[in-house]
């Protein structure tokens, strides 16, 4: 046993640490260096799912039903597999429309309805206040166990007077904490960084404490997990815990129902919504949480069964409440320090849940219950008080204290009653009622206000009848015969076997009937009429939140407004400074210097309304905004019109974008074509000047010699003969040139005549070498001809191809060194084409000129070293070869010689090359 001052001291020291962590978190947030802007903190804060009910109760449930406690944690694992789809959408919606609670979410989705928001708040309060009481009870019973005064003889009343009850002080400390860090100022996003930091810290503490006691029981008290199982196997009364039969009535149906229930709870519990959606700093954090949160749950559940078995083996069944095994096992073995650590872990589990739940509930109570009532009162709505921020904060703080005290009072009144100890899953079943309206609202445009209202009411009523009232009856607060006979003695109205449905445990039974009534009411009533304008517009905004900016207007609103009306309205609820800042930011983002000069269009009205919605809830914000602006009430038709308009605008702008892209592309093409034309023009000029230059050279010499002959009749015969020879040869050259130019022009314009013959390349090459033999011999050049044994016959214009070969040979002849030149002509026979290589041992083509030489009138080398030639040979040859479907290129080039190659395709079997 521990002295009570130590336990109390440790508890309050721990709570002070919490204050310090939260204070640090808030400070860092103010400095802009957020501690919670990281996925691990987000994941840990989600651990608020594990409350004292998990911490103490899991072992208790494992002790009675074996593995049956597990679905409560398997459900969230499966649910989080879909978190990236469902939760992300929720976060987007909440962020876009400044939604700060589940009540607000549902109210906003179904046309900003006060009634719906209020109903959701009532369900949340009724469903979770007992759960808060359970946390307080866990702390209280842990304390009494630790200080050892749980002997009824010492305290006949079982509980000390309220003034000396430490639990009350814990509750009040928690209220102080929540007020300090939960309502520090009015924030339009309702984010509480310090509080989240503290919750993340608590998640670490409870995980470590639970793992510590788990390891202690498994490896210090016993010889490992295997040892525990084998010992348990020796007790036949525990054998049920090792399989599924230990679950008794739950069965497979109950197993599935519990998974489903937990899956829904992990999203729809007010505290989970608060942490996962409202307090989310960055959507990307959800990515890590998707797997890390289930991993956290796995870790905290690893030792539940070993501890339960250890407790049962040590104490036997019925001696000690299994819910306290985590504490009583270390106590029994005299490990006081560990017991204290475990108690602090339980305290962290309880306080974490209470803090977040109370913040979430106080936001709901303030925005969806109190504000609508206050707004009804004429005095407030008309603005008798200028600044309402103080009032708002006051309501929040009051709500926090009231909710906590309600929890405390319920805990005092209920004591050990069944209604309190079994509240965990009953509470889950209450919040599961939000699922149809929430999920339906996110994925179905057709849901209406009445549908959601009827569904929620029906589900809630069935929940009360099948779970809450029976739990009261089992606690002795109602006549227990109600359980057996139902109301009015009608047997078919038995609350735990409604309409005679049996074979399910009470939770699964209630979940089935309540969700049936809920979904049925929601769907069928929604389908009675088409959604109204307000419902349809909100439905569109929610369902298509991922498509925003893609044909969806930011708001559906028509009317006229004045900036000078909107700003003071927002300032009344947000405070002068914050609202001025917000409007100034908005103006800056829209490129307007002064917020007063903003155009009060639909977007600005939407902006002002969202600001207000963050502070007072969407339904109240709607009422307030509509009190200062003139607006049209939109029917479904108008909403559709606005949507069509927006879609059309979007479609037009997309078309415009496409057109401008097409125009740009066309411009680029035109520019390219223009450049090409200019290039061609330049080429033509070059061509002209080259041609005239080439024509002028022979003409000049012809004219010079002719004039000499004309002027001087006395020239002797030998000279005359020589001059005339030059004139003739120059004339021949001129003729050749003109012929080549004509030839080129013909080929290029496609007017050349082509004669198709069968060609034997061996014969053609032999002929070419023979006919140029004299030239080579004159220059002392060796010509080598390498021919295969046989070559296939191909089809083409024999004269033209001969021209190509002659051209290559004469080129080679021009460049090889006199007296030591070597030229090699080789024919290679391939499967699809023949290839001709003409190599020489000349100086090669200068670097950079490899392609230039194939252009018209361009010759390699500089002007002086350039041998005689028209500069048309290679271009013409290339044209001819390409016309035959082949290629002509420079295949090898070095200072030791160059090789020109060309290929000609062989005719495919049964077809011929068409030259034309």
């Amino acid at each position, binding site marked *: 046993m521990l002295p009570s001052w130590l336990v109390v001291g440790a508890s309050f020291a721990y709570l002070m640490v919490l204050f310090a962590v939260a204070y640090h978190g808030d400070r860092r947030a103010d400095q802009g260096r957020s501690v919670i802007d990281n996925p691990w903190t987000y994941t840990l804060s989600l651990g608020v799912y594990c409350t004292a009910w998990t911490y103490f109760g899991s072992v208790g449930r494992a002790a009675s039903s074996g593995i049956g406690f597990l679905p409560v944690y398997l459900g969230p694992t*499966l649910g989080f597999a879909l978190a990236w789809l469902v939760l992300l959408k929720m976060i987007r919606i909440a962020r876009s429309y400044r939604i700060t609670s589940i009540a607000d979410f549902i109210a906003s989705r179904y046309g900003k309805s006060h009634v719906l928001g209020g109903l959701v708040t009532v369900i949340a309060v009724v469903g979770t206040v007992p759960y808060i009481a359970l946390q307080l009870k866990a702390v209280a019973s842990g304390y009494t166990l630790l200080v050892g005064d749980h002997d009824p003889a010492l305290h006949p009343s079982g509980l000390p007077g309220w003034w000396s009850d430490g639990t009350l002080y814990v509750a009040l400390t928690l209220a102080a904490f929540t007020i300090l860090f939960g309502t520090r100022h009015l924030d339009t996003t309702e984010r509480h960084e310090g509080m989240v930091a503290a919750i993340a810290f608590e998640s670490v503490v409870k995980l470590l404490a639970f793992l510590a006691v788990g390891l202690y029981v498994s490896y210090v008290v016993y010889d490992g997990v295997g040892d525990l199982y084998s010992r348990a196997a020796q007790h036949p009364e525990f054998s049920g815990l090792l399989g599924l039969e230990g679950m008794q009535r739950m069965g497979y149906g109950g197993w599935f129902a519990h998974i489903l229930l937990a899956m829904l709870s992990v999203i729809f519990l007010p505290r989970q919504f608060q942490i996962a959606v409202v307090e989310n700093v960055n959507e990307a954090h959800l990515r890590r949480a*998707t797997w890390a949160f289930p991993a956290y749950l796995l870790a905290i559940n690893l030792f539940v069964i070993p501890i339960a078995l250890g407790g049962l083996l040590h104490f036997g069944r019925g001696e000690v409440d299994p819910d306290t095994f985590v504490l009583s096992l270390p106590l029994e073995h005299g490990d006081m320090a560990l017991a204290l650590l475990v108690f602090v872990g339980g305290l962290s589990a309880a306080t974490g849940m209470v803090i977040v739940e109370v913040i979430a509930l106080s936001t709901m109570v303030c925005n969806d219950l109190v504000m609508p009532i206050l707004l009804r009162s004429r005095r407030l709505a008309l603005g008798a008080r200028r600044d309402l921020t103080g009032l708002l904060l006051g309501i929040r703080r009051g709500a926090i204290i009231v909710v906590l005290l309600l929890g405390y009072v319920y805990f005092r009144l209920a004591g050990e009653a069944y209604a309190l100890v079994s509240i965990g899953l009953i509470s889950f079943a209450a919040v599961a009622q939000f699922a149809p309206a929430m999920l339906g609202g996110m994925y179905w445009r057709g849901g209406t206000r009445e549908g959601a209202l009827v569904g929620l009411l029906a589900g809630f009523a069935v929940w009360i009848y099948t779970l809450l009232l029976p739990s009261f009856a089992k606690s002795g607060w109602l006549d227990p015969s109600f359980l057996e006979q139902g109301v009015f003695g009608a047997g078919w109205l038995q609350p735990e076997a409604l309409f005679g449905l049996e074979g399910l445990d009470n939770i699964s039974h209630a979940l089935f009937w309540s969700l049936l009534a809920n979904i049925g009411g929601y769907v069928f009533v929604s389908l009675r009429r088409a959604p109204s304008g307000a419902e349809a517009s909100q439905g569109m905004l929610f369902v298509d939140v991922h498509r925003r900016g893609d044909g969806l207007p930011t708001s559906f609103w028509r009317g006229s407004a004045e900036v000078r009306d909107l700003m003071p309205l927002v300032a009344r609820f947000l405070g002068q400074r914050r609202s001025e800042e917000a409007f100034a930011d908005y103006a800056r983002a829209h490129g307007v210097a002064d917020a007063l000069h903003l155009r009060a269009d639909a977007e600005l009205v939407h902006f002002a309304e969202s600001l207000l919605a963050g502070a007072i809830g969407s339904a109240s914000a709607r009422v307030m905004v509509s009190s200062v602006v003139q607006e049209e009430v939109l029917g479904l038709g108008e909403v559709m019109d606005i949507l069509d308009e927006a879609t059309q605008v979007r479609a037009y702008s997309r078309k415009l974008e496409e057109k401008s892209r097409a125009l740009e592309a066309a411009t680029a093409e035109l520019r390219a074509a223009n450049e090409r034309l200019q290039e061609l023009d330049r080429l033509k000029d070059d061509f002209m000047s080259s041609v005239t230059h080439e024509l002028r050279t022979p003409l000049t010499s012809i004219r010079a010699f002719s004039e000499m002959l004309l002027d001087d009749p006395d020239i002797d015969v030998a000279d005359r003969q020589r001059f005339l020879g030059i004139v003739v040869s120059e004339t021949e050259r001129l003729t050749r040139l003109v012929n080549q130019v004509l030839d080129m022009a013909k080929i290029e314009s496609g007017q050349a005549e082509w004669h198709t013959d069968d060609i034997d390349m061996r014969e053609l090459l032999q002929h070419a070498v023979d006919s140029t033999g004299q030239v080579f011999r004159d220059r002392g050049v060796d010509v080598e001809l390498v021919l295969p044994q046989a070559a296939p016959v191909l089809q083409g214009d024999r004269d033209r191809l001969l021209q190509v070969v002659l051209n290559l040979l004469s080129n080679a002849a021009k460049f090889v060194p006199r007296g030591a030149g070597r030229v090699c002509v080789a024919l290679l026979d391939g499967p699809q084409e023949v290839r001709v290589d003409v190599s020489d041992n000349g100086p090669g083509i200068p670097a950079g000129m490899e392609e230039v030489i194939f252009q018209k009138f361009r010759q390699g080398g500089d002007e002086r070293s350039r041998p005689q030639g028209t500069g048309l040979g290679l271009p013409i040859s290339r044209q001819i070869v390409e016309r035959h479907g082949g290629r002509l290129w420079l295949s090898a080039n070095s200072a030791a010689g160059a090789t020109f190659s060309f290929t000609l395709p062989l005719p495919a079997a049964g077809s011929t090359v068409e030259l034309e």
Partner: protein
Amino acid sequence: MRKGLAGQRLVAVFIAGMLLLNFPLLSLFDRPEQPFGIPLLHIYLFAVWFGLVLVIAWIVERGAR
């Protein structure tokens, strides 16, 4: 494209998890056998759970790169 693929994978994992952790597949493992001295059912549940965590982690963290 990548995001869409990850979403489809997560839905598939969800369905697989629902099947693996419920009747009738679950009943196949409710046997008296005790590998490593631990009931087969308990090993199976925690192993599937751990496997789900790993697969989900692989899917979402891969998409993050």
